[in-house]
């Protein structure tokens, strides 16, 4: 029965296809397969919170006045009546107290920003720990590193816009970092602020960057990021029937559309709920910015906290020579260390493939335990960031837990160097232990919990064999072998020498330290021997 509805749909589709030839492309892509796993939602959360940021941000621009002109506040928030302030701060108060839903949108915008950064970071960790960045996905890794970097900047600019006492202090610190750059620092600061700090142009300038320049770059990068995911097809976790040559999952239409589209609304709902019930950045309590005042317990948003923590623990070192000053206490924690960390992160896929010599495509994800050194490196870096983050909240921690700032600083100063390597060693050991546990599970089966008393009085627990699917999932991965460096190859060409080759050989060897994956042969031998 060809209903009239179907005929209309057919006509519309025909009209569009006559002009675009889209039918073939759409037919192919509507059945595109997407693997299903909870960890694949992390990137989705980042994407959806970006859309929420665009929507709520547009709402805010209708009333926000990006200006540092002095005005006298006359709005409905009585405690600040007749107080001189910038138009930016006054308009933020106006949005918060005199626009229906204004405070809600401000809080949704701020919560969505925190969620955006959190989702990006956790998504990045997922990609790192599962090896999803390997060939052919290095470009997407680089774009991702770009996005997280820009996200930090975008978030900082965003919470600076209201020009309140807290955020103005943050801008002051940013100005000091600019000013500390050798040779050109004072010039950069004066150019950025249109003269001496704070000036009257910085808020309008960062407003443009915050609402146009960076969101534009974000949109472009996110588009490329997703197009590459689309074109390269999603990675998948190893399991029965899943290979490097296929992709197993649900078709885009309808299951993936329903789940992913529905998930957008769920993320929106949760963000709106947070905006409704959880107060965030109550700028009316801080007062307007003036460089002569400050509030105690000044804290940046969480994704800036680790940088602040590094700055706080920095030893007071400055060099004064030849009539010039270099502030190592600002440059090292504020620019040099973050620069090294982010460069290392960006280059990691290339470093890993250089060590392993593996130039093949990878579409099956790694279980983190099967790549102990990478997993340990990730935990090591996280530990570094966490120690820094702890020190970023040292004043809050000190007052809440009755500790001295001095103790926290020395703990983090020493911990910053000692704890990451310890975390590396522990993580690697845990990975190898988990490999050992996998091996036991495959070879000896799982504990059934049933105890049997043998004729000789001995108690044994019955082990049940695991399923063929499970055995395959636990054993399908390859184990790297140490690259034979340092000896001539089969053609008699002498191996590369020098520090670089030695380093590579050493690391390749470390990668090969693994618990032997159990094989079916071993399993059968054991079976024969046991019973």
């Amino acid at each position, binding site marked *: 029965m060809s209903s009239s509805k179907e005929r209309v749909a057919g006509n519309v589709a025909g009209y569009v296809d006559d002009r675009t030839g889209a039918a073939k492309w759409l037919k192919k892509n509507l059945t595109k397969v997407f693997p299903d796993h909870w960890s694949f939602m992390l990137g989705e959360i980042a994407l959806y919170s970006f859309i929420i940021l665009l929507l709520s941000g547009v709402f805010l621009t209708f009333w926000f006045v990006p200006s540092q002109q002095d005005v006298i506040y006359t709005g409905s928030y009585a405690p600040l009546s007749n107080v001189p302030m910038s138009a930016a701060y006054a308009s933020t108060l106006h949005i918060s107290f005199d626009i*229906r839903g204004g405070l*809600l949108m401000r809080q949704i915008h701020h919560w969505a920003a925190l969620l955006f950064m959190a989702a990006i970071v956790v998504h990045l960790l997922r990609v790192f720990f599962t090896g999803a960045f390997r060939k*052919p996905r290095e470009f997407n890794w680089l774009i991702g590193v770009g996005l997280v970097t820009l996200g930090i900047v975008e978030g900082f600019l965003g919470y600076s816009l209201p020009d309140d006492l807290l955020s103005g202090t943050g801008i*002051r*610190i940013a100005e*000091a970092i600019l*000013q*500390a750059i050798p*040779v050109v620092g*004072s*010039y950069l*600061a004066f150019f950025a602020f*249109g*003269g*001496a*700090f704070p*000036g009257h142009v910085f808020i309008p300038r960062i407003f443009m960057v915050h609402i146009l320049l960076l969101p534009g770059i974000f949109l472009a990068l996110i588009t490329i990021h997703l197009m590459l995911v689309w074109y390269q097809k999603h990675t998948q976790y190893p399991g*029965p*029937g899943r290979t*490097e040559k296929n992709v197993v999952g*649900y078709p885009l239409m*309808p*299951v993936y559309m*329903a789940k992913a589209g529905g998930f957008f*609304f*769920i993320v*929106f*709902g*949760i963000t709106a*709920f947070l905006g*409704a*019930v959880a107060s965030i950045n109550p700028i009316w309590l801080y007062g307007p910015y*003036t*460089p*002569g005042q*400050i509030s105690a*317990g000044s804290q940046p948003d969480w994704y800036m906290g680790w940088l602040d923590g590094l*700055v*706080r623990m920095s*030893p*007071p*070192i400055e060099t*004064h020579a030849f*009539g*010039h*000053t270099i*502030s190592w*206490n*600002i440059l090292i924690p504020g620019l040099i260390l973050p620069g090294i960390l982010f460069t290392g992160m960006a280059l990691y896929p290339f470093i890993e493939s250089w060590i392993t010599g593996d130039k093949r*495509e990878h*579409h099956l994800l790694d279980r983190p335990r099967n790549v102990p050194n990478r997993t340990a490196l990730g935990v090591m870096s996280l530990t570094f960031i966490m120690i820094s983050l702890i020190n970023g909240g040292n*004043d809050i921690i000190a007052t809440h837990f009755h500790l001295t700032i001095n103790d926290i*600083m020395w703990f983090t100063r020493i911990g910053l160097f000692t704890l990451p390597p310890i975390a590396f060693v522990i993580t690697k050991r845990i990975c190898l232990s988990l490999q050992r546990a996998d091996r036991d599970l*495959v070879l000896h089966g799982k504990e059934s919990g049933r105890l049997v008393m043998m004729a000789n009085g001995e108690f044994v627990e019955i082990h049940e064999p695991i399923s*063929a*699917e499970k055995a*395959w999932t636990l*054993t399908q991965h390859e184990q790297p072998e140490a690259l034979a460096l340092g000896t001539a190859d089969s053609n008699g060409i002498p191996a590369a020498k020098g520090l670089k080759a030695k380093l590579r050989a050493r690391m390749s060897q470390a990668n090969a330290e693994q618990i032997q994956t159990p*094989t*079916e042969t071993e399993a059968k031998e054991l079976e024969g021997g046991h019973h």
Partner: protein
Amino acid sequence: MSNELQKFSDPGLPEHIHRKADTDPAAAKKAERQVAILFALSAIGTIVLIGSYIFVKPNKFVFLPIMGDTNVQQALLGVGLAMSTFFIGMAAVHWGKTLMDDREVVAERHEFRSPESDRADFVATVKEQGAMAGLGRRTLIKRSMGVALGLVGLSPLVLLRDIGPLPKKQLETTSWKAGTRLVTDPGDRPIKPADLEVGAVAQVLPELIPGTERTLENVGKDAVLLIRLRPEDFNLNAERLSWTHDGIIAFSKICSHMGCAVALYEQQTKHLLCPCHQSTFDVTRAAKVIFGPAARPLPQLALTLDADGYLVAKQPFTEPVGPSFWERSS
């Protein structure tokens, strides 16, 4: 040795297990009803949103546990919006999970690498088309193009020159001059030593020259903290001691680390603390750094009295205030 061992083999995709709703029409009907209820909850949320926008007074606050004073309208708008979106999502996901076909499908992947012949063709094409432009032969064009493109890259730098003035000596100077009176902030009242008790602390600014206005740029460099101790508390060299007056000592309030206002004064220990990065300065020892990342003491302002008995600056600051910069000489 490991080569001789037989690896486990891939058992292939496990058999599909049907859901209850796939086989039992009653269960499917129930799932359908659940989806409809979720959509209905979303609709209720939108009604809450519209209702609270129109009917709730914008300035009504209630005290709620944990949340504190809450604007009723903003909270209800938020709850309505949250419901209206969240339940659409839940409905779609529930629909997808219970009623849409959940058989996994398999698609093939293809290597991204183009066949060798295509790659060779590509290189050949680039070479051929490039040769048409004749860049290899026409070195004059190549060089002049390089110069032109390099120069055009300079134009944005030139055009951006006017985004700010040159710093000149602005980072090194403040409004304080010899004889500038210290005035209260806020209030702009001149200060006599008797106005300050021992242990007191006050934020002061330089007195405005009539006809001028105080800008935030001024405040950012001029803000000074005035602290009164007992004269015997000081542990200063003769010069710095001569900059105090009867136990009253003045320091720049702008942190020598990153420019925050050094606003926390601890009366017992006579320490000044910057809340940004916890740099701590000992007032009795000319604001020596005793903790934290600041590398230099807060600049001290020399004090004296004018003819009318008001506190004035004996001289300008002898060093730049605020965070370090390249041109700073000490």
